[in-house]
C-alpha cells in the first residue's frame, strides 16, 4: 500500500498500538453486505493485528444506539454505520472526524467515488463518511408475468403504465400481486418510498417558508395513486411490509413488480430467489414532470469524534471501502455480490457488467437523483427521500404512522367490499 505522509504517521501509530492488541468497536446494520464484510474482516485483523469487536444490529435498534451514543459523546464505538441523512447533519455538529487521511490517499482514490454519493457525505468539500454501498431505487419486474399480461416494460416507465401493468398482472387466485411497495411505518421505510414518489408527482414537504405542503393537490395525487394501486394490486398486509418483507415476497414469486432499493437487484437474481432468471429492471416511474420517483442513499462508515482509536478506525474504513475490498468480495462471492453504488471504476469494470445485469440501471438511477433539487418546485431543503434537518426523523416517523394507517384502512375497506361482492371467497 502506498501511503501519504499523514497515513504513514497514522499507520506507524497504529502498528505501535497494535502490539498491545488494539480493538475497534464497529457498529453496523444486519444487512447482507455488512454481514459479508464481518465475515471477511478476519483478513483485516490478520493483516494489521487490530482486533474487531462487531455490533451488528437490526437497523432501527442500531440507529437508536449510535444516535444516543454520539449525541451524548458516549464513546462506545469507533466506527459507525450511518446513512446519507445523518452524515451531513452530524458532521456539521462536529460529531464526526473528517476522513482526511483517506481523501489524501491516492491509492484510495476519493475521486473514484460516485459524485452524487460523495457529495451527500461531504460538508464544505470534506468527506466525513466513506460509502460502503450506495443505492437508488428502481423498478424490478417479472418478465414472464409482464409477457403474460401482454405488456412490455419500457426502460423509463410512467406511473400510468405501472398502474396499468400492476392491475393486469394481478392474479389473486394464484397469489400473485401486481405490485409490492413499502407500507411499513418509518421514515426510512414507507416515507422514503412515498417522499421519493411524491417528487415525481411534483409534491414537496415544505415550501420556501417551511410551510408543510401535505394539503396540496400534488400530495393528494401521490397518496391517491399509491393507495388505489395497493388496494387493487398490492399484497395483503401491505402496511407492515418494509424492504425485507417485500424482498421475501418477490423472491417467492408473489410480486409482479417491486419498486425499491437498487441493492435488492443482487438478491432477487441471487440463489435465494425462485424467480432469479425472470427479473427485469427499469428506472423508477415518472409523471412527465421531469422528476423520477427514485431516491439516493448510501450506507457509510464514519468515525465519531469520541473514538479513542481514530487512526485505526480510519485504517479499517479504508480496508472496507477501497477498491481492493471490492475485488476481495468478488473473489470470494462473485462480482454480482460486490457492494454496489460507490465507485465509478466498478461500473467501468467489464467483469462486473457481465456478472451484474442490473449494473447499468443502478448507475443510471443513482445519477438521476439530485438531492439539492429533489422535486419540480423549489424547496428550502436538501435530500431526495428525506429532508436534511435534524427534526425530520421524528416528523416523518409520525407522518409515516398515519400513511401506514391509511394504507391499512384502504386495504381493509377494499377487502370488505370485494368479499361482499363475491370476488374474494
Amino acid at each position, binding site marked *: 500500500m502506498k501511503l501519504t505522509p499523514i497515513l504513514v504517521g497514522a499507520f506507524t501509530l497504529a502498528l505501535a498500538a497494535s502490539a498491545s492488541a488494539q480493538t475497534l468497536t464497529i457498529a453496523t446494520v444486519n444487512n447482507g453486505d455488512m*454481514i459479508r464484510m464481518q465475515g471477511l474482516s478476519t483478513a483485516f485483523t490478520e493483516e494489521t493485528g487490530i482486533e474487531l469487536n462487531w455490533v*451488528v444490529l437490526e437497523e432501527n435498534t442500531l440507529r437508536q444506539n449510535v444516535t444516543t451514543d454520539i449525541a*451524548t459523546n458516549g464513546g462506545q464505538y469507533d466506527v459507525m454505520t450511518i446513512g446519507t441523512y445523518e452524515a451531513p447533519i452530524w458532521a456539521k455538529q462536529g460529531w464526526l472526524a473528517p476522513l482526511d487521511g483517506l481523501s489524501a490517499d491516492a491509492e484510495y482514490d476519493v475521486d473514484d467515488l460516485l459524485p452524487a454519493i460523495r457529495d451527500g457525505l461531504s460538508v464544505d468539500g470534506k468527506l466525513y463518511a466513506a460509502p460502503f454501498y450506495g443505492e437508488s431505487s428502481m423498478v424490478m419486474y417479472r418478465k414472464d408475468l409482464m409477457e403474460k399480461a401482454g405488456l412490455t416494460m419500457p426502460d423509463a416507465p410512467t406511473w400510468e403504465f405501472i398502474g396499468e401493468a400492476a392491475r393486469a398482472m394481478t392474479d389473486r387466485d394464484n397469489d400473485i400481486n401486481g405490485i409490492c411497495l413499502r407500507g411499513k411505518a418509518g421514515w426510512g421505510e414507507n416515507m422514503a418510498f412515498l417522499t421519493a414518489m411524491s417528487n415525481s408527482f411534483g409534491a414537496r414537504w415544505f415550501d420556501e417558508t417551511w410551510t408543510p405542503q401535505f394539503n396540496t393537490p400534488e400530495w393528494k395525487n401521490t397518496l391517491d395513486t399509491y393507495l388505489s394501486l395497493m388496494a387493487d394490486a398490492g399484497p395483503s398486509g401491505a402496511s407492515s411490509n418494509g424492504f425485507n418483507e417485500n424482498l421475501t415476497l418477490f*423472491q417467492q414469486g408473489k410480486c409482479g413488480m417491486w419498486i425499491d432499493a437498487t441493492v435488492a437487484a443482487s*438478491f432477487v437474481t441471487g440463489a435465494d430467489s425462485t424467480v432469479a432468471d425472470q427479473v427485469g429492471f427499469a428506472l423508477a416511474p415518472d409523471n412527465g414532470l421531469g422528476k423520477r420517483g427514485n431516491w439516493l442513499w448510501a450506507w457509510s462508515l464514519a468515525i465519531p469524534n469520541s473514538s479513542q482509536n481514530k487512526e485505526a478506525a480510519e485504517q479499517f474504513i479504508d480496508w472496507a471501502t477501497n477498491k481492493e475490498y471490492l475485488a476481495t468480495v468478488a473473489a470470494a462471492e462473485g462480482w454480482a455480490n460486490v457492494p454496489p453504488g460507490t465507485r465509478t471504476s466498478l461500473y467501468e469494470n467489464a467483469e462486473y457488467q457481465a456478472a451484474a445485469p442490473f449494473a447499468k440501471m443502478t448507475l443510471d438511477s443513482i445519477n438521476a437523483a439530485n438531492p439539492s433539487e429533489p422535486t419540480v418546485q423549489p424547496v428550502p431543503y436538501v435530500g431526495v427521500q428525506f429532508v436534511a434537518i435534524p427534526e425530520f426523523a421524528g416528523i416523518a416517523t409520525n407522518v409515516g404512522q398515519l400513511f401506514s394507517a391509511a394504507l391499512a384502512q384502504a386495504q381493509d375497506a377494499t377487502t370488505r367490499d370485494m368479499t361482499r361482492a363475491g370476488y374474494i371467497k
Partner: protein
Amino acid sequence: MARNVSTGTKIGFTFAAWAIALLLFSPILWVLLTAFKTEAEAIANSPTFLPQNFTLENFSAVQDRSDYVKHATNSILVSVGSTLLGLAIGIPAAWAMAFAPTKRTKDVLMWMLSTKMMPAVGVLIPIYLIFRDLRLLDTVHGLTLIMTVINLPIIIWMLYTYFKEIPVDILEAARMDGAELYNEIVHVLVPMAVPGIASTLLLNVILAWNEAFWSITLTSGRAGTLTAFISSFSSPQGLFLAKLSAASLLAIAPILLMGWFSQKQLVRGLTFGAVK
C-alpha cells in the same frame, strides 16, 4: 390427590389438559422445528411440520456471525450477579420489615414497588449520561448494577411476603432459650427461609435474563447479553426465519432448561407464601 374419578373422566381431563398445554407450547415447538429447517423450507408455501432436510447450517451461520458463548456468558454473569447482589441487599431489608414491622413498613414496601413503574424509555438519557461519566457503558458490572436496582423491589417484596410466613413465636422461643442472634439466624431462620430465597433467586434470574431494553442500549459488543444477540437476527435482508429460530433457540435454551429443572423451587417462591 386420591380423589376417586372414573377412568373416562380422567381420560377426558387428560386429553383437555394436554391439548391446551400443547397449544401453549406450540410457538416454542415451532422455533424448535424451524431451527433445523432450511430457509427455503421454513417459508415454503406448503408448510412442513418436521424438517424435511434436517440441517444444522443455521446454527453454524449464527455462530459465524455472533459469538454465542460470549453473549451467553454475559447473560449468566449479569442475571446471576444481579440476583446475588439483589439478595445481599434485599434479605436484610426484607428480614427487618418482616420481623420488626413499623407503621411505615407497608408504605416503604409500596414505595419500593412503585420505583419499578418508571418507564425505562423515559429515563434512558439520564442513565446513559451517568453510565458514560462513571465509565460503565458496555461493561458487565454496569449492566449488573442496573439489573439489580430494577429487580430489587420484586426481590424485597417476594422475600418479605415469604419471611412473614415464618411464625414469630419460633423466634421468640429461640431468644428465650438465650440463643445468640447468630445462632437464631443460622439454626432457626435460615432453614425456614431457604426455599423462599431459592425461588426468589430463580425468578429474578429469569427476569434479568429476559430483560431487553437496558441490555441492548447500554452495551456494544463486549457486554452484550443474549437479548442483544437476538437483536442482530431480528430482520435482516433476505430469508431469515430459520436462522432467527436457531438464534432464538440458543437464546432461550439455557433459561428454559434451568426453569424446567428447578420448576418445583420456582413454584414454591411464586406463591409468595400464600401456601402454608
